């Protein structure tokens, strides 16, 4: 079974600075997807960024980018120019590439605090 590990329960960053959230995963599959989801306090969970395992290029979405190291099974999220609105719980998630395996496996989450 696949597992996802987020080793940082909590992180802090100064507004406008850069922060990196860590995620490692374990799988024997070669075809899969990785995601970072953001869950603000008492608000809806939304997708931040996703990465297809077959793509070597790291995904980027505006201020959010990933460092995908397939051999090391590492998938970190970098947030540049941090804003107060980035404060949330961030979850790393894994999804098998097999059609009927469309279930997400989540890590334990990292609370990100942004200081003004």
């Amino acid at each position, binding site marked *: 079974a696949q597992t996802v590990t987020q080793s940082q329960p909590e992180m802090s960053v100064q507004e406008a600075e850069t922060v990196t959230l860590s995620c490692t995963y374990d799988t024997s599959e070669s075809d899969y997807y990785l995601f970072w989801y953001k869950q603000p306090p008492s608000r809806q969970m939304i*997708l931040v960024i996703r990465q297809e395992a077959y793509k070597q290029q790291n995904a980027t979405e505006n201020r959010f980018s990933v460092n995908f190291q397939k051999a090391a099974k590492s998938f970190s999220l970098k947030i540049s120019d941090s804003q107060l609105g980035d404060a949330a719980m961030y979850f790393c998630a894994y999804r098998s590439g097999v059609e*009927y395996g*469309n279930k997400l496996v989540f890590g334990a989450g990292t609370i990100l605090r942004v200081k003004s």
Partner: protein
Amino acid sequence: EADIYQTPRYLVIGTGKKITLECSQTMGHDKMYWYQQDPGMELHLIHYSYGVNSTEKGDLSSESTVSRIRTEHFPLTLESARPSHTSQYLCASSESGAGPEQFFGPGTRLTVL
């Protein structure tokens, strides 16, 4: 507007009551999911459905049941609520085929006294 809805958002109920948590989506997605999340913790899949009349149990054992009579509707029922059921329940949906993203509802925070 295409979205996913959950009602109620908050529910406080006594032990032994039967409850149904509603989830509806207007995106035409075939796949729907229920996750359980304790405060500050990860999400665990408790039920999922690949389409009408298709339901499966997830990775985390749950005493709840689900049904999928209509594509857009995926309610979760607890026949007899207990304090151990206190948690947040999140509903999600996704397309079939190559679209792997799951869209989440706002969640229902359930407290059983």
